[in-house]
């Protein structure tokens, strides 16, 4: 091999463009950490003279640039045998030695700025207790792709096949999303959750801003408050509608920008997903790294005839959505196709169905429905405010409906190859996994469950647990023995 092709064997720096991204990252971190100070300086600019601000900004700017350049110069990486070494740090030198077979995934990303300079961002994730995630700010396209290819080859060891070298054109397109699909998907997302997040964010931001800006803003807010108070009901409704509208539009925009032109490809050894409007993401997952398949449905999704699904990979951060390949929406035929491709000839028909005990419903309704309701009723008796009475009644009925529906929608079954559970009230989540992906099993009993000879069964996988609540103890033990046997007699590597 020529020397220029062996660059990765000796300590190598990132692309020089990386300096820019490091500067950006440092400024980003500074702004995030010190934005209250920034706000004070901006709002109370009369306290500081203009020249003080200018000099301060210049000093900080120079320090940031020098630190970034030093950071760039002191950052090396190279491959040695079966380890990826990274040396970094200006004052405190850190050296990472990452065994290549511990690397879970290598993601190449090209955000907008990276595209301008034709460089790639490389993210490397490792599993295991160390849980180190690691990324290169910028590598030239050629180097990033070489690195990815070599790491993937090394991972396979001596049995490396040529599959990795096959051009991407060998991949078969499974499905892609049009803008119309994306609008449907955006509409059917969980808006209540988004609204909650926005509300929480607005409230906490309001508090923080008040802490920082103090009188200047709070005077103006008080004025606003007075105006609001005069029309409290109208404003309340307007505020609620506003939040829901923002959530709705926000999710729609987010969905379209995140999943724009999503394409799911079937590779010889796994799957590849490309998506994104401004940031193009590419995620690759190997078939044998997939631990679990999950799909979600809700009434709106059902109306449009779509489901969202995910491939879960083994991850140091169990159940992290970043390690999952997400397709936000596809129709049922596509879901079937993907499932069949993933499982091969494995039958999907249940041979045994789990029945969860009605006791779960009774117990949860009692503790989460009746007890809080009693509390509100007591408040009503003490205060004679009818609002408490209505809350008490609605709570107990609502909780009955909620728990009853949870109990009715819960489903779980197994056959000789897979285990599948579905649960939820409005949003129904289904998880499916192959027996040999199970890492450990646990039977758990509370004193109440012990008295009634029932138990909760936990299946642990490398991408999170699957739980079957409140089945009979005998059934739990039989199932546990069955899966123990299935895992212990399986010769298939789980990843």
């Amino acid at each position, binding site marked *: 091999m020529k020397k220029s092709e062996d660059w990765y064997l000796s300590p190598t720096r990132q692309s020089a463009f990386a300096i820019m991204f490091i500067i950006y990252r440092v400024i980003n971190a500074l702004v995030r950490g010190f934005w209250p100070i920034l706000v004070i300086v901006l709002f109370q600019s009369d306290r500081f003279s203009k020249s003080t601000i200018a000099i301060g900004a210049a000093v900080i700017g120079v320090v940031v640039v020098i630190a970034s350049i030093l950071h760039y110069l002191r950052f090396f990486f190279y491959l040695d045998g079966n380890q990826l070494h990274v040396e970094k740090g200006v004052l405190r030198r850190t050296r990472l030695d990452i065994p290549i077979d511990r690397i879970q995934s290598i993601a190449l990303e090209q955000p907008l700025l990276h595209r301008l300079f034709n460089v790639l961002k490389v993210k490397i994730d490792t599993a295991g207790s160390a849980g180190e995630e690691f990324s290169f700010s910028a590598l030239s396209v050629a180097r990033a792709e070489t690195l990815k290819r070599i790491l993937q080859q090394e991972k396979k060891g001596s049995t490396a096949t040529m599959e990795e070298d096959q051009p991407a054109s060998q991949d078969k397109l499974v499905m892609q999303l049009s803008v119309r699909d994306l609008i449907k998907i955006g509409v059917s997302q969980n808006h209540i959750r988004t609204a909650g997040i926005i509300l929480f964010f607005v409230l906490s931001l309001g508090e923080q801003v008040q802490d920082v800006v103090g009188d200047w803003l709070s005077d103006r807010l008080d004025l606003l408050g007075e105006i609001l108070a005069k029309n409290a009901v109208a404003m309340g409704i307007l505020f609620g509608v506003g939040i829901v509208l923002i959530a709705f539009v926000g999710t729609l925009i987010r969905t379209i920008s995140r999943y724009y032109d999503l394409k799911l490809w079937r590779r010889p050894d796994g799957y590849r997903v490309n998506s994104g409007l401004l940031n193009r993401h590419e995620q690759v997952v190997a078939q044998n790294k997939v631990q679990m398949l999950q799909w979600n449905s809700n009434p709106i999704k059902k109306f449009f005839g779509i489901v969202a699904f995910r491939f879960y990979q083994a991850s140091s951060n169990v159940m992290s959505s970043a390690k999952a390949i997400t397709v936000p929406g596809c129709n049922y035929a596509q879901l079937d196709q993907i499932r069949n491709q993933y499982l091969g000839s494995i039958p999907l028909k249940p041979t045994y169905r789990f029945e969860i005990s009605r006791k779960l419903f009774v117990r949860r309704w009692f503790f989460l429905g009746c007890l809080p309701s009693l509390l509100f009723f007591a408040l009503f008796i003490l205060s004679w405010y009818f609002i408490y009475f209505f809350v008490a009644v609605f709570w107990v009925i609502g909780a009955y409906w909620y728990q009853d529906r949870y109990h009715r929608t819960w489903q779980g079954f197994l056959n000789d190859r897979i285990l599948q559970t579905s649960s939820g009230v409005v949003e129904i989540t289904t998880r499916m996994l192959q027996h040999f992906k199970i890492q450990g099993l646990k039977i758990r009993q509370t004193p109440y469950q012990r008295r009634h000879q029932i138990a909760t069964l*936990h299946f642990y996988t490398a991408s999170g647990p699957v739980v079957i609540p409140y089945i009979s103890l005998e059934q739990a033990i039989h199932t546990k023995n069955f899966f123990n*046997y299935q895992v212990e007699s399986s010769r298939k590597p789980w990843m």
Partner: protein
Amino acid sequence: MQMPDPLHFENNPLAVGLLPDVSAIEFTSIESRYRFPLYYSTSLFFGIVFIAAIIVALIFIGITHWLSWTLLIVCFCLYLFALLYAQMRVERMKYVVRDRDVSFKEGVWFRNWITIPFNRIQHCEISRGIFDRMYKLAALKIYTAGGSGSDIAIPGLNQEDALRLRDFIITHIQHLDEEE
């Protein structure tokens, strides 16, 4: 132990009566003297609680006030309960190592029973605290890729037993790897 032919079982997955039954296996209790290290660490913790309680009683409430005495008595009752609880925990901790898996049962209030197949173990670790060393005890920790929920920590093993178990498990894992 000779495992039955997998193909046979794949066709009859619910012939559960034929499957090896974990519950029929005798579990081994951990060493009962493990309660002493637990007593010590509990006492250490409650020693600090007592000192804090006494300071509060002397400085903030006044030693003659009934509240001070109630506070100290409550602390003492909690301490006795914690000792009793430690004793019960030790009695409930049981484990069994079989040819192909390791199981651990524990819990006074909430009972857990975890089983990890050997071919899913990532690594083992032996840890010995100060009080453990006084009683020549060790804890065997077994890790999987399934997150902390499915990891097992068996405390209160004889040091030699812990080492032997670890070696047994490690060689078995390697043996299984070679089979594959």
